[in-house]
């Protein structure tokens, strides 16, 4: 069975409703696959129907119900007491109000958290305006101090890096004779110093010598002070 474009168009909704079966369904699908015009059309209608079925209902203007009631039953009497409260609650039961309330709550929670309120150990005193102010002030100062420390750390790192770079440049631009020369063929761990003194002892001896030199230089001043 071979179908024409007109036949496919005429039975399009039947196909979507699952009313085509057997030879009819096969003929529909064969034509849909082969026809350059009907293929995209079937895809478009299928997408359109699913889109329309998923389209959200439009919110009703709140005044519509009240206007209709006023026009049919006459102006409403003023309700008081628990009925008024129930009417008020009913008026709040709309998705828009729920979203608004949720976003206000989220903002409130974030602000409280930022002001140092502890949700694990909540205290009534934390909610007093003075404490909220003090906590917020503390948090701001802590934040500021952290930011300043971070920036100064960055500065120190930058200075060290630039100093190292400068040293490297100087080393590269220095004349040949001033450059340190590679030591010829050494065993791993071997130094230029051929004395038997271990390196740690040598460092200590150097330090002591430096201190003795300083003492010798300052000795006349120390003697003068002690005489006075």
């Amino acid at each position, binding site marked *: 069975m071979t179908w024409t474009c007109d036949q496919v168009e005429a039975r399009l909704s*039947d196909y979507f409703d699952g009313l085509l079966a057997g030879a009819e369904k096969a003929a529909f699908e064969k034509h849909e696959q082969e026809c350059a015009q009907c293929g995209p059309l079937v895809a478009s209608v299928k997408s359109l129907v699913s889109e329309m079925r998923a389209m959200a209902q439009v919110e009703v203007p709140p005044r519509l119900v009240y206007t209709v009631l006023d026009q049919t039953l006459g102006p409403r009497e003023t309700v008081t007491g628990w009925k008024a409260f129930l009417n008020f609650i009913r008026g709040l039961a709309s998705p828009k109000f729920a979203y608004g309330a949720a976003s206000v709550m989220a903002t409130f929670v974030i602000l409280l958290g930022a002001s140092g309120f502890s949700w694990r150990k909540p205290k009534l005193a934390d909610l007093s305006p003075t404490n909220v102010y003090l906590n917020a002030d503390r948090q701001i100062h802590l934040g500021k101090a952290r930011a300043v420390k971070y920036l100064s750390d960055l500065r120190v790192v930058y200075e060290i890096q630039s100093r190292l770079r400068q040293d490297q440049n100087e080393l590269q631009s220095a004349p040949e004779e001033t450059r340190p020369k590679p030591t010829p063929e050494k065993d791993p761990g071997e130094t230029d110093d051929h004395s038997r003194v271990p390196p740690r002892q040598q460092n200590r001896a150097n330090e002591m010598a430096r201190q003795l030199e300083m003492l010798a230089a300052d000795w006349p001043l120390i003697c003068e002070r002690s005489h006075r």
Partner: protein
Amino acid sequence: MEQDAHLVQQCLQGDGSAWEELVRRHSRRIFNVCYRFVGNRTEAEDISQEVFLRVYKTLGSYRSAHGGFATWMTSVTRNLLIDHYRRTKRDRLTDSLDDAMPVVENKESVARRPDEQALLGELSGQVESALTKLSPELREAVILRDLQQLEYAEIQQVLGVPEGTVKSRINRGRIELARLLQQMGVRPS
């Protein structure tokens, strides 16, 4: 359905709260049918009000044996929408003549308000826009089937035409709508 019939009985006995309950139960559906048909919130609100006033006045003529209250209300809505379409047809013809001439005021008055534009998703907005370009017969059939998701028998009752005609209108409406969307540059997802 039975609850609606019970509320109608209470209304006819003068119970105002039963009428209020009926209005609250059906306002969303009626407003949506009107909005999808006219594509404008203010007009949809006015027609919805008219529908409820008409229903209130003619409540005594409703017979539950002839079908559900919702279907009966949809028939009233449909009749008023068609009346509104015929009433505004002359205005639209004048508008289309005016549109042919480049007059700034008319283009601004036709444009949607920003809140209406924000209300619609991009694709939903294009579908709504295309819907208003369909002929009223095809538009009402597509709205009732694909947006209100009524059964063929209910649509047949609302429109007062045979089931074959209902199916044919829905089919043609969908195809025309898909072609309009293609012309608007909308690709199937």
